[in-house]
Each structure stands twice: as C-alpha cells, then as structure tokens.
C-alpha cells in the first residue's frame, strides 16, 4: 500500500526535539588551551601524571595523525571539522582531592541523578523499582543481586567517580579510570594498550591515541566471573569540547565480564566531536559482553547541532574458545560512524554483533561490524536492524572475511531495514570475502516499510495506530533487545519509542 496521506503528514510533523538529556550543567571547569599541538598533548599527559612512555606513545600517534587524511568513504556528509577550534581537555574543577563520593561536586552528582545514573551505592542497594533478576551464588557466598552495577562516570575529559571499587577489588577485578590505571597498573596497560586498535589504525583512532583523556580500564583475572555488571556513563557537558575516551577491557583466561556503556550530551547548536576507542581482549575461554546504549544529542529537527560520533571499537578474541559479543542500540548523534568489530584469532572463538540503529530528523548513521575470521572453526553472527525515519540516512556497512587458514569458519548475517516515511534512506553495504573453501557464509538483507496489512490487523483488534507501530517496531528489533542485560533492555525499549515519536502514528 502506498504511504497514506496521514503518514506523510505525520512525517512532515517529525520532531526530534524530544531529547530528554539536553540540559547543561553549570560548573566551573578547567580546560587545556584551545587547539591541538604537541603542547596540548604534553598538557594532557602532565595533567594525568602519566609515565614517560605514555607521552611518547601519544606524541608518536600525533605525528602520525598529522600525515593522515580524514576518511571520506562513509555515507555521511558534514562540514569540515576545524581541529584547532576544539578543546581537547576539559575537567570539572576539583575543589580539593576527592576522597569519597560525598565530596564530589553536588552539581555533577545532580547531573547523573537527572540522567538516571545512580552514583551512590546505597541507592542501588535499595533497589529502586528495578526487578531483581536471578541471584547468583558463587562458592556459597551470599551473592549480590544482579541489579548491582558498578559505574564509572566520565564527565567531559575525566572520570569523576567509580563505584563498588572495593567489592570488585575483593573479586580481583580491576575497574578504574584508565588514567588511574596508567599510574597504578602501568605494566598491564602497556601490555595491552594499542594492541587491538594500533595508533596507526585510522584517522580518528590515531587522533584519539594522541589526545585521549580518560575512559575505563577493566581487567578480569583468570577464571573470575565478574560479580556485577560494569558500566561507564559518558557525558559531554562543556562547549566546544571534543570527548576522546579510551576504554580497554581485558578478560584473562576463563574470565567473564559484562560491560555497559551509556552516553548523553546537552542540546546545543554546535556540533561536537566524540572520537573514542574501545579495545577488548579476550584470552583463552574468556568472554566479554559489551553493550552500548548511545544517546548523544542528535541535533534538532532542522539538523542543527548534535554530536559527531566517530568511534573505533574492536575486540580481539585472542585466545582459543573465547567469545566477544557487541550489542548496540544507537538512537543519538547527528552522525554515527562506528563499526564494532571482532578479530577471531583464537581457534573456536566466536563473535557476535547485535545492533539497532534508529535515525530520525537529519541524523546520519553509517554503522556495522567487521568479523575477521583467522582461527580455525571460528563463528560469527550479525543481526542488524536499521530503522530510518524523517530525513535521515541509515547505512549498514559490514565486512565478513575468512582468511586462508580459517577453515571451518561460519557466519550468519541478517540485516534488515525499515523505512518510515519517504524522505529517508536505508542502505546496506556488506562485504563478504571468503578465502577458504570450508568457510560457510550466509548473508541476507531486506528493506521494507511497515506492512499496511500488519498494521490493519493490529488496529482492527483495537490498538491505536501508534501502539500498532510500536508493536511492529518492537517485534522488528526484538532479536537485538533480547541480547541486552535486563535493565538496559527496558531502557532501550523506552528509548526506541521516544526516538520514533512523531515519525509514526
């Protein structure tokens, strides 16, 4: 059926100004001088009290970056970024050395409260309405309820708080800002940093290597199942500031960790740059589950403002039987340029990628994954759901490759797109490369609009048009939502309905 007039009217009335996290926190902050030079990098490094090798590493990346050109292959368009017109470091001014949460600037605490991110451990213990999922018992010890989540809160360029540190320490898990890890566990950081995403990887990753200011560091020792979900919450607050965070997660032999990431930013007319790097390393029999709910400010209904989210995320299944799973719900950002990937190096390792990318207004999404099969009997699975509404462009771009020695490699890919309105575009650009005859790759993709028949069926049974569309969309993305940890899944579901509000009935 053709798009009925009703639908068209609704599309015209699209409004993405429903961003709930667009407020700004008034707080004094300390910044590096505007612009990028070796001095900026020295400034950041000095601020962080970093070891000498780290500064060298950064400078090398910076010199490399100067020789590189910005990539243009993605299906996104934006005005040239003036890299000299940005602040590369911005931190809330500390009153004095912070010893406990109580001493953190109350403005920041309020910000996180407003965002629904509890930084006070008590609040979490009290449960706050959330359903208590299965309680896990380990070694007869009274286990923590699964609603417990350790949070690392990153505000502009610095980490302001990390919760449940002590409890994690007992389990042997290291969870701290990477700047702190560089001081406390320099050997560990040096051993793994840049081994998955080398400083030479790509334009934005190289820039990040030079100027990254904070992010999370996780190390789970051999055989340890991390007792709670770990989570980092990224918030961009300051104007004209780029956020360059770096996350490094290492699951040692037989370890397991589930990590969540959330992001928001104030509503502004300017575009802000977010160029992060995430590196995951899974050794033998280890498993890492990485979930993202990305909700950066997407710009207003005219396409003004919003975050440029240029992120490099990559996981290395370094050991045999290791597993890395990426789940992402992408609803924010003016431009998303992001391809969480898995290098399946260990034999029998497996990678998963579950993604929901929703674009509305003038958003541009170019996202997907890479599954690089190197080891024997490696398997990967890609489920990608793109929903384009308004005047947005939504692209899935993915690579599945099997190298000569990757015998028995298996991949299944399904990427489906749903178009809501006739001003948007949905695109699929998969690359499938098999250099081994025993590799079995299957790829399927579909693009369609919500079937009028299905809508009619629902409406006939008493649902409103809006409820019906919601039902169909939720059915469409359910494969991915199921992969999210419980708390996140509920959030994500809400987020999906918010970001599509106004675009459908």
């Amino acid at each position, binding site marked *: 059926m053709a*798009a009925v007039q009703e639908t068209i009217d609704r599309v015209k009335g699209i409004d993405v100004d429903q961003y709930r996290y667009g407020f700004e926190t008034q707080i004094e902050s300390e910044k590096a001088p505007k612009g990028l030079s070796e001095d900026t990098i020295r400034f950041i490094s000095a601020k962080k009290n970093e070891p000498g090798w780290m500064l060298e590493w950064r400078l090398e990346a910076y010199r490399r970056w100067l020789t590189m050109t910005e990539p243009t292959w993605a299906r996104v368009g934006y005005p040239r970024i003036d890299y000299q017109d940005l602040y590369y470091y911005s931190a809330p001014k500390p009153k004095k050395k912070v010893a406990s949460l109580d001493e953190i600037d109350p403005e920041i605490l309020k910000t996180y409260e407003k965002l629904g991110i509890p930084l006070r451990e008590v609040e979490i213990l009290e449960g706050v309405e959330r359903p208590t999922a299965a309680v896990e018992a380990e070694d007869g010890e009274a286990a923590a309820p699964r609603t417990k989540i350790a949070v690392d809160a990153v505000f502009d360029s610095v980490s302001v708080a990390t919760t449940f540190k002590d409890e994690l320490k007992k389990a042997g898990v290291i969870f701290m800002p990477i700047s702190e890890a560089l001081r406390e566990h320099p050997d560990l950081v040096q051993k793994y940093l840049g081994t998955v995403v080398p400083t030479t990887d790509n334009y934005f990753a190289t820039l990040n290597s030079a100027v990254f200011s904070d992010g999370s560091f996780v190390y789970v020792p051999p055989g340890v199942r991390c007792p709670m979900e770990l989570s980092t919450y990224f918030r961009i607050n300051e104007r004209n500031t780029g956020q360059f965070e770096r996350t490094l997660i290492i699951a040692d032999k037989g370890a397991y960790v589930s990590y969540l990431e959330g992001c928001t930013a104030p509503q502004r007319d300017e575009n802000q740059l977010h160029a992060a790097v995430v590196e995951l390393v899974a050794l033998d029999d280890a498993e890492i589950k990485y979930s993202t709910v990305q909700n950066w400010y997407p710009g207003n209904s005219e396409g003004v403002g919003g975050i440029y989210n240029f992120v490099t995320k990559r996981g290395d299944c370094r050991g045999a039987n290791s597993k890395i799973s990426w789940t992402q719900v992408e609803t924010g950002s003016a431009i998303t340029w992001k391809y969480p990937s898995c290098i399946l190096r260990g034999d029998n390792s497996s990678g998963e990628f579950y993604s929901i990318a929703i674009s509305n207004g003038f958003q541009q999404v170019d996202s997907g994954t890479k599954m690089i099969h190197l080891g024997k009997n490696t398997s990967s699975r890609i489920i990608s759901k793109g929903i384009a509404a308004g005047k947005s462009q939504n692209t899935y771009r993915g690579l599945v490759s099997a190298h*000569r020695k990757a*015998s028995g490699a298996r991949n299944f890919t399904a990427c489906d797109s749903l178009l809501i309105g006739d001003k948007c575009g949905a695109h699929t650009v998969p690359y*499938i490369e098999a250099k081994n005859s*025993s*590799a079995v*790759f299957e790829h399927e993709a579909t*693009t369609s*609009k919500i079937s009028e028949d299905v809508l009619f069926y629902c409406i006939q049974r008493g649902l409103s048009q809006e409820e019906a569309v919601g039902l169909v969309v939720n059915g469409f993305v359910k494969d991915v939502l199921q992969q999210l940890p419980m708390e996140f899944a509920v959030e994500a579901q809400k987020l999906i309905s918010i970001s599509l509000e106004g675009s459908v009935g």
Partner: protein
Amino acid sequence: MGVAIRKTKAELGLADLYQGARRYLPGGEEITAVRAAAFDRFTAVGLPHRRVEAWRYTDLRTQMKEAKRLASLPDDAAKAKAREAKDLFAGAGFRKLVIVDGAFVPELSDLAELETGLTIQPMADALAADKPLLSQRLGAIVPDDDPALALNTALAANGVVILVAPGTALSRPIHVAFVTTNWVATSMFTRSLVNIGAGASATIVESHQGPDGSEYQVNTAMQLVVGDEARIDHIKVVSDGNSALHIGSLLANIGARATFNQLGFVAGGSLIRNQLFVRLAGEGTVADIRGGSLLSGTQHADTTLAIEHAAENGQSRETFKAVVGDTARAVFQGKITVAPGAQKTDAKMMSRALLLSDEAEADSKPELEIFADDVQCGHGTTTGAIDDELLFYLMARGIPPDEAKALLIQAFIGEIIEGAANEAVRDALTGALLGWLGRRE
C-alpha cells in the same frame, strides 16, 4: 589527497595508444571532442585500483602489466581463421554478425534479407558520420568516472549498430561474434549500440572468443536503449583465451513497461571484468539479470552490477552464481539503487559462490541503496563448498564422487542457464558448461 602517483607502464602505454591513434580513429569534430574529454577523464584517475571502491577487488593497476598495441585491420588470413573459429551457436539459425580483431567484417556477416524495421551498420561508419552516439544516447546513466569505460569511449574504433524500429518483433536472434584471431597480443576497443524502439522486441547474443596463450586485451562496451513496452533478451558469453584480459561494460537504459532479460556467462579469459550499468527509467519495467561464472586455474572474474530503479512499480531479479576452482577468484559486486519516488519497487538480488578448492576465493558485495519507503528489496549471498550431504546422497546411489560433483555443479549453474528464454541459447550454454566440466577432469 589525490597525490599524483607515478604512471604505470600500462598507463603510459595507453596514453601512447591514444596519442598515436586519435588522428585515425573514426569520427568528426564532435566525436573527436568526446574522445578527448574521455581520455582526459581517464588520465586524471588512471587505471583503477583497490582504493577505487567500484574496483575494490580488481586491481587493474597491478594486474594490467602493459598496454598491447592496437590490433590492425584483419587481413585475409585473419578472416579465414575467424570463419573457421568454433561457434557456440552454430546451427541455431541466428543472424550472425562477425567482428574480427575489433573490426566489423561485412563479408563474414549475415546481412542478407534484413527484416523490415531492422538496420545494421558498422559502428565505424556511424562514428564517421559524426553522430555523437558514443556519449549522447546514454551519457546520462553512465558513471562518467569509470576509467575503463572512459578508455573505451576514447579508443573505440568499431563495433556494430543495430536499430530495431518501433513495433518490430524480430523473431530471429542476432548473434554478434567478437573473434580475436591474432596470436600476437594486441588490444581491441569496441563499442556497439542496440536501439530497440517502443513495442519492439529482439534477442541479441554477444560472444567473445580468442586463442589460448595470447595475452590479448579486450575492452568492449554495449549500449542498449530499450523503448517503452519493448522487450530485449541480451546474452553475453565470454569464452576468451586463457591468457586474455576482458573488460566489458553493458550500459542499458530501459523504458516503461518493458522487459529486460540479461544473462552473462563467463567460461574463459584470464582476467575478466564485466560491468553492468542498468537503469530502469520507466515505470512498471520487469528486469531479470543473471550471471554465471565457471572459473579455474588462476582466473579472476569480476561481475559488477549497478541497477537503478528510477521509476515506480519496477521489478527486478538479480541472480549470480560462480563456481570457483583451483586458485581462481570470483568477485561479485551488486548495487540496487531505488531512487526517491520509485515506490512499489520490488527488487531481489542473490549471489552464490561455490568454492571447489582450498585456494579458491570468492568476494561478494551486494549493496542496497534505498530512497523510497514503499518498497520490497532484499539481497542474499552465500559462499561455501559443495554440500557434503548432497554429495553423499548421490554417492549412496552409486554415482562416483567426481560425477556427483559434476552433477551438483551442473544443477547449481543450471538455474542461471534456465533464465534464457531461447532454447538454442540454453542448449549452447549447457554445452559450454559440460565442456568446462569435461576439461576439469
């Protein structure tokens, strides 16, 4: 960006070819200007390489070592060779037009008793008359930046022009046979134009062949202009010699409520690039595009398809299959674009590769680019070895493994061959398939 890279030997050679030939190439002022502009476009980008997205898997800059000198006009010996050359479609009763070493040869061609409404002319004559056929007819749909096509425009000397008047239904298929006879490696640039008037219908078979062991280079382009409610069946068979470079471009612009059946079949050549640029310009057009590649040895065959649904209610099916043995490499790149407003488009693309050996490689990039919301589009792709269970099934019934494999390959490629509406074409292609399977043993 765009730092000038040192010209390769082949690029320098191509420049020499053009400089040496441009004065003699057919065409008046206008055509000459079109050629010059095309060559400038080529010079600006050079031979395509893997950083050029459309040529990602076929790096001509490294794989084309040098440019061979242009083939000279066929002499009597060449014509005699061409006459004796094996004809896949012999006995099918097709009207045969023969192009020897890049030149249209009337005395070998069947030009007698042309049906009313059918006009056949050598491209060289059409060019000499300075009708800007090369660019004007299809200029709009051709991606100007394709370097191989630009080379063709600059250097094409001959080919054939077939005009079918509106309302004419040609019952007798036309077979355009491109035969390379020369043992000494040369290069040939040919351009052909087929114009099917509104409501007319025709079957055009295009074949390319040449001697094994000769590193000759073919750059051929075919333009199809199909009117409203017309029907075209176009079949292209590449059975070039085992050392040949074959670059072929098909440019098709299809009118409203028309039927477009296209089948490409690769069973020869060393490095093959078949690129198809199809535009379904009118509403309600039905397109069926198929491709089959049989690859062995060190062959490299790249099929690149860009199909644009520019109007409403179009339907297209794209089915591509490749059987890849030894260290051969099959490449499929397909892109379906649905233009804004091309509502009710129904497009489905499928590509499958069957890998017969551990060193074989298949690369596939099926793309969808959709700007209209009320559409049904999909693509699928699979890569894998022969299904062991199917093999077991056949072997359990007493069929030896090699034979069972051959049967499965035959069934696999059979789906492509079945797409040909003409029985004689199906028979010829099946013959080619069996011949290929026979040579494998």
